[in-house]
């Protein structure tokens, strides 16, 4: 089967996020960017399917500025066969991303789409679900295990109180949870080979998708710093403080 994975370029998880001085967003200039960790898990799952022979082709798709090519290259170095970049400098909201991905799906006709359950920058957790709705395909979100048999995808999901297993007919949309797998390191030969793998570039106009934002960001602020804790002598003092200072009892 043909598998498509979506990869997003986000601020590296190690970076200390700084809010822009005009409160319009977070500082992204001269900041280390990496592939969204949940998308890495998606790529890893695709590569494992490719190695197991379940997948015949693995395509890594990214949407955003030209620099997203680097994110696609990371996917190619991990083992994807080719890449697609929908190049745009616009701020993309989940619905616009889902529409663009649907346009790519219409071109490529994959049997399976794997996405991270959410991106670590905006934590929206919407794209996979919206894409499945737009396509009218079944969805298995927060997958912690995936198995394929008889043209069906069995998706194990972590839900409150336990594990749930869904059987999806194909084609389908799957979003990955943290425990689905542990992404590999790209090897030196594969990093060098990734350079030669093709990346097709489209514009949002090529795909006929209107990406105009529907939301307006009013203000982005740093979370309030936590006040230093104090060590209390005994429970009586705690009760006293809860009553007089915190005024919760």
């Amino acid at each position: 089967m043909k598998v498509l994975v979506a990869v997003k370029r986000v601020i590296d998880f190690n970076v200390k996020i700084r809010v822009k001085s005009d409160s319009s967003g977070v500082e992204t200039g001269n900041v280390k960017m990496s592939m969204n960790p949940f998308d890495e898990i998606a790529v890893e799952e695709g590569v494992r399917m490719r190695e197991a022979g379940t997948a015949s082709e693995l395509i890594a798709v990214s949407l955003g500025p030209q620099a997203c090519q680097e994110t696609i290259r990371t996917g190619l170095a991990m083992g994807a066969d080719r890449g697609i970049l929908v190049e745009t400098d616009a701020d993309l909201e989940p619905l616009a991303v889902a529409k663009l991905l649907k346009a790519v799906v219409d071109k490529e006709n994959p049997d399976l789409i794997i996405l991270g359950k959410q991106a670590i920058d905006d934590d929206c957790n919407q794209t996979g679900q919206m894409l499945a709705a737009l396509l009218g395909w079944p969805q298995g979100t927060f997958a912690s295990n995936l198995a394929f048999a008889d043209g069906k995808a069995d998706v194990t999901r972590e839900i409150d109180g336990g594990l749930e297993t869904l059987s999806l007919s194909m084609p389908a949309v799957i979003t990955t949870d943290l425990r689905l797998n542990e992404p590999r390191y790209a090897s030196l030969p594969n990093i060098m080979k990734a350079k030669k793998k093709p990346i097709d570039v489209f514009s949002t106009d090529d795909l006929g998708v209107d990406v105009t934002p529907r939301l307006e960001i009013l203000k982005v602020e740093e979370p309030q710093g936590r006040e230093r804790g104090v060590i209390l002598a005994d429970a009586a003092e705690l009760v006293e403080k809860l009553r007089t200072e915190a005024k919760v009892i």
Partner: protein
Amino acid sequence: MEFQLSDEQSLLVSTLRRFIGIELHPLEDIVEQTGELAVEDAERILKNSRDLGFYAMNIPEQHGGGGLSTLDWMLVEEQFGYTTDILIRRAFGNVYEILLAGTPEQQERWLLPSVKGRRTFSIAFTEPEAGSDAASIRTTARREGDTWILSGQKCFISDAHFSDFFVVTAVTDQEAAHRGISTFIVDKGLEGFTIGPDQPMMGLRGTTHADLFFDDVKLGPETLLGPEGDGLKLALETLGRVRLAQIGARAIGKATRILDLTIEHARQRKQFGSPIGEFQMIQKMLADSAMEIKAARLALYATACSIDRGNEAREEISMVKVQASETLGRVVDRAVQIFGGSGYAKGLPIERYYRDARIYRIFDGTSEIHRTVIAKALLKGAPQLYDLVAQ
């Protein structure tokens, strides 16, 4: 002039940084406490690294290595600086390019197994009476028919107890001064070849250092590496790139790792009611460290690019060697100062970094020797070393 990593370089660098953080950092404290890297750990990190093509990346592809350009190799070695000497040796190899000067038979027998990580070797040039003055060695190899008889002593040989063979310099012609030195490959276990006990060092825990004793060791003609009398020339030609990598790049990587920790500490540590990073005297130290690291790194990359263009860059390598190792010395000294008492205590790794850093100004040519190399070139006429227009 583009000061930006390519997509591949950036991926290689971040992959290595992650590999080192996950696979090697957890072993550092254990090696520090036990004084050695357990055999099973050494085998595991070798396997994990080799499977990813991270072993012997400096050796050309046709010999089974990674085939990196000098610049790419320096980017990689800078990341190696994020861990300790012994872990770099076992995970990524220490395959000196001097073996590329060997005949196809020599490469088959000694280079190939080294590139695959099946055999390990060390360079043995230093002697009790010949450190910086490499030409004054007293180890001799005299010809007897078809064989060479090696006798003498080498000292401070890194990894001596682990290595399977050694590349050894010896005088083959007493009359010819520095043109009378040749290089031999000496297998461990030959009759008359003994290795002294480990000499514990200030830092570099886990790596052994020992004397080698040659008491009329018989060497076949196939052990002569390169032409007779070319020993010093060979060393000069092949060790420059290694020096740039193992001292220059690694020192910069180490300094970067230490500055990261220092800045974090300056943010967190509170005195007089505010983080110490808000005090100007601490700020000066942080700013100086960052400026010096950045300058040394640019010099490193410029020199690597120069080598990739085909230049020998001997004096530039010396410049980076001094600049990077002395930067590391200052950065780690400031780190101890900013960490204060906890920087001096063994509970944190800062004191270990301090001990490990000191050797950088000494091994592979002292700061003094490299300054002499630079100054001699300047006096002979080498304005390209400092003047843009003369380049």
